[in-house]
């Protein structure tokens, strides 16, 4: 193993008093051997420099004809820009003849053109921009001399649709530039093998792993008063959090949702008598505002920032003294990632404080601390790649140059997420792109691809290729409205979901971007507001997938719960709560399933302690209520949390084993799921990503008369006439994994089989109190449910107004949305 750096680098390192780290030298050795590498290192380990070092060394000697040598792909546009800046410094200082440029959606057209004609030595980009470059006709020439592809934050990409798209692009690059090495950079993760396969891309790859030298120091902080039974915001701990902020130099306060970020930010400022600089950072804020906050952090101008996962990734700011996580940690891997944000020096431990918002979260925090101490990582292994992403890719590749289906199939299967892709699925995806792939053949005239006499696939015409390029990407947003202060030059604050805006009336107060705002009006795609406002503000909530408690962490919580010997680290209030549960009912066992049934206010409640996360419990709730209906128990509603599912009914549930029988996941499931809004939402994403409907249409900005069809309507028609269509199969595959979490529900039913403990009680048990307090949060619906909601609302309105009244309903009465 070579032990030193070449000349200019050795001098440059020495001038800074640095020594090359072993993994940086190992990366150089791997480059010399021409190996693909996955580098796993904790944050702060000099990972990025290690990734670029071999390319910098190789490019230190001037080349005859500069060609694109190294391609760097990052999940964040901002990261690409920051890295470009950070690399330019040493390159300039060492006087290296290396040109470094970025290429993202923001790159101006003239620079894009120049990059194609005269590529830089190093190009820093995102998965979407790479897909676009690969769809261009000159892609083979542009990438022919490529020597190295660096993929940053692989752990955050693998297993997502963006990761699927990037994997397909990596496979394409392997075809265009067979000699190019692939280098993956990843944080510490649970599943090494899939990530290694992701970088190997059909070949071999070496793993270089840097051990964490100093384990983080994580503690728990409880509110000064009582620990809440329920709630997820953790506002009761705001003053304790504020004390911690005052005592430290720079703090990141991580929370779980954007709404929580807004609320906690307001609460902290209420207590911020010294007006310490405390900022807010989340994914819906205006990008310019976010960049300002990041810049202020880098300069050390802030004392604290309240952030969501928007700060999970990104460059190292340094100077962060502590991380405070308010609310459930959800999983050890995510917690470690966040904790690693503090004190980015490998030799010193990171400091972190967990702030549970309720009693169950106390257990979860305790379990997470012991999970981190045991170095146990969690998170799901990445699943198979999406067929919708494949469809998008197949059209883009045809836009670059014609291909034979057999060759393309081989190429696609080299991408790790598609290694097990069946020929049938491939052919169906290709046919979908070609002519829709409908049983009723109808669209010969408008096919997007054609096959020549040799069987080569060509794009039908330049317009189809242009449309495909305009619609690249796998991130599908809910309909959003821009939020702007009214008046000339009013500041852009960010974006909220349209459905939130529709619920506001003129004069309503809402909280956004850390401000109290008054809603004025919606003008086209902009929500106009003014500063100020009184009364209880509304806080925008955002749809989309919320992270569930991981399986490993759930198992730790269950084990801890059942074993009083392990309660000694828990606060008194929580210990008493558990002891009371043991006395009045029983504690849920690590295996098996505890089900409690008790009457309350003329209803029967059934509470099952599944610990499988909110998504799985929500699915279980839907299925249980259907079955209870059939059993004659007359279910009235249910509520799902991360830990339990509670159902209430008019009649007493008797046959509990029958209710939880494994056949619960049979045809009931298919029937119910097909009708839910979850499946429609999933289909919408699939339809957009696959290119069935377009986000952007050439000329659409000028001429609004383009034909768009609502995806819900398409879903209804397709489901009726071709239920096995490739897009519906893709939809089901997504739904099974994400929103419904069927895998975990399955595990739970397996575990419960023959081991259901039923406790019939005369009143609510201590452990069931939180879920009863959560009642009213449920929102998963089918059209049938919607009808009953409409009926109920119609009756309420009629009662409030008298049936003949035509005047607008009074404030706070149920009303037509958008009334203003």
């Amino acid at each position, binding site marked *: 193993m070579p032990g030193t750096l070449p000349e200019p680098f050795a001098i440059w390192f020495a001038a800074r008093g640095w020594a090359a780290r072993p993994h940086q030298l190992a990366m150089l050795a791997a480059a010399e051997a021409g190996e693909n590498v996955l580098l796993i290192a904790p944050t702060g380990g000099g990972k990025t420099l290690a990734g670029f070092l071999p390319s910098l060394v190789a490019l230190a000697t001037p080349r005859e004809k500069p060609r694109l040598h190294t391609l760097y792909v990052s999940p964040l546009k901002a990261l690409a820009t920051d890295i470009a800046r950070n690399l330019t410094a040493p390159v300039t200082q060492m006087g290296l003849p290396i040109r470094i440029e970025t290429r993202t959606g923001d790159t101006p057209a003239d620079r894009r053109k120049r990059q194609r004609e005269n590529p830089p030595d190093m190009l820093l980009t995102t998965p979407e921009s790479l897909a676009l470059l690969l769809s261009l006709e000159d892609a083979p020439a542009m990438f022919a001399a490529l020597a190295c592809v660096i993929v940053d934050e692989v752990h955050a990409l693998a297993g997502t649709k963006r990761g699927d798209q990037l994997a397909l692009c990596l496979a394409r690059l392997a075809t265009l530039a067979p000699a190019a090495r692939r280098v993956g950079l990843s944080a510490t993760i649970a599943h090494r093998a899939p990530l290694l396969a992701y970088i190997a891309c059909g070949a071999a790859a070496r793993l270089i792993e840097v051990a964490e030298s100093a384990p983080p120091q994580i503690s728990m902080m409880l509110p000064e008063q009582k620990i809440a039974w329920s709630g997820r915001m953790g506002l009761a701990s705001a003053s304790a959090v504020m004390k911690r902020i005052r005592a430290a130099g720079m703090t990141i306060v991580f929370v779980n949702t954007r709404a929580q970020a807004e609320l906690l930010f307001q609460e902290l400022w209420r207590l911020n008598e010294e007006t310490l600089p405390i900022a807010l950072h989340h994914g819906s804020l205006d990008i310019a505002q976010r960049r300002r906050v990041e810049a202020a952090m880098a300069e050390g101008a802030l004392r604290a920032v309240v952030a969501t996962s928007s700060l999970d990734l990104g460059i190292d700011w340094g100077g962060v003294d502590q991380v405070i996580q308010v609310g459930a940690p959800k999983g050890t891997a995510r917690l470690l990632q966040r904790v690693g944000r503090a004190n980015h020096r490998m030799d010193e431990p990171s400091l972190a404080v967990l702030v549970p918002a309720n009693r169950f979260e106390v257990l979860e925090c305790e379990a997470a601390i012991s999970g981190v101490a045991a170095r146990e990582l969690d998170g799901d292994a990445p699943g198979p790649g999406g067929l919708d992403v494949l469809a998008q890719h197949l059209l883009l590749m045809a836009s670059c140059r014609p291909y034979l289906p057999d060759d393309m199939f081989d190429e696609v299967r080299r991408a790790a997420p598609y290694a097990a892709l069946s020929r049938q699925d491939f052919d169906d995806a290709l046919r979908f792109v070609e002519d829709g792939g409908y049983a009723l053949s109808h669209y010969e005239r408008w096919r997007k691809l054609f096959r020549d006499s040799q069987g080569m696939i060509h794009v039908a015409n330049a317009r189809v290729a242009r449309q495909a390029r305009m619609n690249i990407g796998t991130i599908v947003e809910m309909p959003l409205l821009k939020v702007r202060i009214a008046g000339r030059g009013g500041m852009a604050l960010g974006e909220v979901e349209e459905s939130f805006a529709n619920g506001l009336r003129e004069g309503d107060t809402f909280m956004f971007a850390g401000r109290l705002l008054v809603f004025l009006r919606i003008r086209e795609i902009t929500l106009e507001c003014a500063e100020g406002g009184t009364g209880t503000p509304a806080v925008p909530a955002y749809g989309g997938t919320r992270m569930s408690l991981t399986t490993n962490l759930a198992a730790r919580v269950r084990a801890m719960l059942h074993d009083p010997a392990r309660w000694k680290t828990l606060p008194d209030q929580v210990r008493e709560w558990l002891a009371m549960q043991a006395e009045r009912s029983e504690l849920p066992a690590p295996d098996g399933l505890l089900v409690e049934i008790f009457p309350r206010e003329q209803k029967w409640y059934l509470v099952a302690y599944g610990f499988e996360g909110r998504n799985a419990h929500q699915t279980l709730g839907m299925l249980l209520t259907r079955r209870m209906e059939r059993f004659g128990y007359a279910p009235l509603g249910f509520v799902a949390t991360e830990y339990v599912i509670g159902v209430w009914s008019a009649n007493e549930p008797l046959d509990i084993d029958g209710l939880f029988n494994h056949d619960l996941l049979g045809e009931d499931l298919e029937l119910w799921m097909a009708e839910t809004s979850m499946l429609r939402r999933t289909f919408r994403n699939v339809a957009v990503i696959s290119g069935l409907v377009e986000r952007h249409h050439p000329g659409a900005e000028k001429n609004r008369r383009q034909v768009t069809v609502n995806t819900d309507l398409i879903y209804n028609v*397709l489901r009726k*006439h071709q239920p096995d269509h490739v897009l519906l199969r893709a939809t089901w595959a997504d739904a099974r994994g994400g929103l419904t979490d069927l895998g975990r529900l399955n595990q739970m039913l397996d575990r419960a089989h023959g081991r259901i403990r039923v406790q019939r009680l005369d009143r609510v048990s201590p452990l069931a109190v939180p879920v009863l307090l959560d009642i009213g949060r449920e929102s998963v619906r089918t059209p049938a449910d919607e009808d009953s909601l409409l009926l109920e609302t119609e009756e309420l309105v009629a009662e409030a107004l008298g049936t003949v009244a035509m005047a607008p309903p009074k404030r706070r009465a149920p009303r*037509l949305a*958008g009334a203003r």
Partner: protein
Amino acid sequence: MTAVFHFGGEMLQLDPAGALVWPAARVLVVADLHLEKGSAAARGGQLVPPWDSRVTLERLTLLLRRYAPRTVVALGDSFHDDKGASRLSPTDAATLHRMTSAVDFIWVKGNHDPGPPQGVGGTAVAEWISARLCFRHQAATGATGEISGHFHPKARVVTRAGEVVRPCFMADGRKIMLPAFGAYTGGLDVRAAAIASHFPRGGRVFLLGAQRLFSFPV
């Protein structure tokens, strides 16, 4: 279950499928079928499922069986574009032909289909007037006794568990606006100025449901 609506001296029924029935005259009214919208989208590069005309015609067939009308009035935008009728599949064209031969089929012209549909039978008119009722595609300012389509009205209702959005009828004592009947037709919120300006004193919406309509004041 239909909703009874007294209007222009006549008793009318609103059907939850989105059609209006005038029992005394044995007239069935639907608006904005947008037949062959799917193939219009395909022509523009979006290969959406091609069964939209079939679904729309099947729904219309059910209504014809239920109400056995003598006259069917389609309130314009019956085809998504002027060439739509020529793109109908042979099966769908035959279905439509059977319909137009069995009843008096009135094609009111719309902005999407200003020319009469070719080769599908029926009678094309600019607007259709009967008794004190006027059937036209797009509402005219100040008109009374008017039944129209065009805007694809839909309404949002805030319920206990969030917002529900449905296509709807919008009506007051002078105007009735029908929801779009086509399988691929979206909608415009009744609060939008384009619709609301025709109902200066408000009105009622009737949201479509599986079995019945849900009525709210606006």
